């Protein structure tokens, strides 16, 4: 997923090889990750696609099935991975992830701790941010989840950047060996306040902690605990409003033409498909409006900086 070999970087040819991880894009809401395997086929509602046809083609290419249906093959990125990974838990999405990386001040070379690993959605972005010289230590007390996460990091080529540990972070805290080494710590735990004292021990002075919690009561308790060793406590909620853009016809010839937007969708579409010869005053238009469906809440992000006491 990441261009790890700096020598190949400038001259990289993004063509698909046997064994590569690709993102199969059918539609924006229908994608999946696949390992290319020269003897394999992909079968979906568009027909049968032979992997061997894909090899040697550039990433970003459109490929066809036996029935003439098509899909796109994209190079994997942490953003795409978040959309295709298998959900073993609730996961973090792009808006929260982006703010976390920025606010935790994570840059190449950083040492970052995380718990719980969950489905590894955030971990993948953490790994990108610390590459090529930093490291992510991520812990989950759920053995199977940790194992699946490890498999995923193998698949996405991030294993050298991420170590997955099985550990009860609320009960035992982070391992003592890491004390004083962490540039940043991220918590997505049901009772973050139990892990905060240990997070304080592992952080370097002025290092930043973030705790993600869906409920305000969790935030309240976390902040009560944070106030003794941490400073610069900031709590945010971040959401994305998305827009839908489509083509329609706007009738400018009539006085009441402006209310076209209130017509039911079906009629609008029909009228845009229809022959426009009879209403010569209508213009094809790009129409944009906010999508009416959106996430209303994901969680609160609590950030705090370890006090400098020396």
């Amino acid at each position, binding site marked *: 997923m*990441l261009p790890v070999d700096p020598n190949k970087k400038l001259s990289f040819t993004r063509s698909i090889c046997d064994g590569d991880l690709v993102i199969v894009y059918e539609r924006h809401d229908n994608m999946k990750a696949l390992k290319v395997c020269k003897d394999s086929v992909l079968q979906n509602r568009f027909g049968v696609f032979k992997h061997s046809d894909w090899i040697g083609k550039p990433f*970003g290419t459109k490929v066809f099935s036996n029935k003439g249906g098509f899909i796109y093959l994209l190079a994997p990125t942490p953003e795409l991975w978040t959309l295709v990974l298998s959900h073993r838990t609730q996961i973090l999405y*792009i808006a929260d992830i982006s703010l976390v990386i920025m606010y935790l001040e994570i840059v190449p070379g950083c040492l970052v701790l995380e718990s719980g690993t969950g489905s590894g959605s955030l971990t993948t972005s953490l790994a990108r941010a610390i590459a090529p010289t930093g490291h992510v230590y991520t812990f989950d007390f759920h053995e199977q989840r940790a194992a699946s996460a490890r498999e995923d990091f193998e698949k996405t080529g991030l294993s050298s950047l991420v170590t997955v540990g099985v550990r009860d972070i609320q009960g035992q805290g982070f391992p003592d060996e890491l004390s004083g080494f962490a540039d940043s710590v991220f918590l997505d735990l049901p009772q973050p306040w139990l892990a905060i004292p240990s997070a304080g021990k592992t952080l370097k002075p002025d290092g930043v902690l973030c705790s993600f919690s869906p409920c305000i009561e969790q935030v309240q308790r976390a902040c009560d605990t944070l106030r*003794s060793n941490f400073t610069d406590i900031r709590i945010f909620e971040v959401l994305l409003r*998305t*827009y839908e853009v489509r083509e329609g016809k706007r009738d400018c010839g009539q006085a009441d033409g402006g209310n076209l937007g209130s017509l039911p969708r079906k009629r609008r579409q029909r009228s845009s498909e229809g022959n426009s010869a009879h209403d010569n005053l209508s213009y094809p238009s790009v129409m944009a409006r906010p999508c009416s469906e959106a996430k209303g809440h994901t969680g609160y992000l609590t950030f705090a900086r370890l006090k400098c006491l020396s």
Partner: protein
Amino acid sequence: MSQNKSQAVIIQNPRVTWEGCSVLLDINDGDRLVFARLSAASTLKIGNKNFSLQPLIGCPFGSSFQIEIGDKGPFLSRFVASIEGNNAQEKEDFESQEISKDNRALVDNNKAQSLTGEDIDAMRRQGATGDEIVDALIKNSATFEKKTLFSQEKYKLKKQKKYAPKVLLRRPVARSICEAYFKKYPARIGFLRVDTLSLLLSMANVSANSDVLVVDMVGGLLTGAVAERLGGTGYVCGTYLGGTPYPMDIVRIFNFSDEVCNRIVRAALTELSLTPTVTLEQIHQQENELNMECLSNPQMSSSVSIEEISPSEKEISVPVPENVVSLVNKMGKSTKAGNKASQQAIELWKENGFSSLIIAAPELDIWSLLQDIWPLLSNSAPFAIYHQYLQVAPCDSSLMPSCILMMPLATCMHNLQLGKMAIGLQISEPWLREYQVLPSRTHPCMQMNAFGGYILSGTKICSS
């Protein structure tokens, strides 16, 4: 200037200041934000006095300073906040007292304070510290005891800001630089909010070893933020229309090492787009011109920063003690960022394309810009375009059919769709709300920024 080069210990992420390093000084919890370079000669004005920044050199980022009175008058002195031990107790006190008190008996007139301005001046002359003055003010306030704990806190904080100002030493990184500009001079960074910036970096998959093409008309903030994520690998190439690169003075505020600066290059869009007809001679000539431009502006940073303390000429020659971890060539270093991209690199980019693209160009026509840039982007490359306007239309509506309104990014998205140029297209508008979380006083902050701009993101596909 670079005599220490050979001994330089390169640390990616320094947490202690050094002579010549760039810092963000946060005075009284964000009331004032000052970018400065630390040197023996640099000073900070607080009230009507200038304070030397020398005591800040060699201190860890995150440390706080207050004014102390020494033999030679007041100076900045580091103080270490103690761990609040009896936090739980305080909280309980707070909660029980809070209920029993209210402010019905509070009369606000100017007679509440019995200490006069002259009294305070006298205390000062006798060497009282700021904290002592604040304590005296509290003792001599007739109303303090009657206030609720909440207003007592507020009163104390207000007096502290005036009589015992605090200076917090912050690391100048993408987060703090973006927030500081957004708070004080948002127009200079095209109103690019920190969450929006963070989204641009994710959506464009900025990662080590990638070659990122940027159109940065936000003062260099974008270029700096990308370079920070590259950590001295890959390239961030700033491209521009016309003959003059866009200013990127903000890049100089980051404490970038030479390794990082060398990865920040610039190239005119025409150079990147043209089939090679430029002769080597022409290239060299251009190179010289560009270097001239950099040299003629050595103090560039002083004119842009929010409240920059201009570095004195002399400090450049001050030798750095050898035991201090240094990032060599501190003053001159950032000058190097933004050199012309080498012809070799340009050729490779023309052949292979950039691995991603970010545009933050509030002033340009996005669609025509994008058409020119498109061939430079490799297949499957993600891109993110920032724009802050809901509508850009001619004021004179007779120039265009009056019923056409444009949301510039929507038009752009539509054209990309029609041309089958990209997939995964999305326009998003980030929304950010901050909260105050305190015992029994948790609520969203009273002020919020209502607009973070729009982002168009997607992935380029092969043209068939």
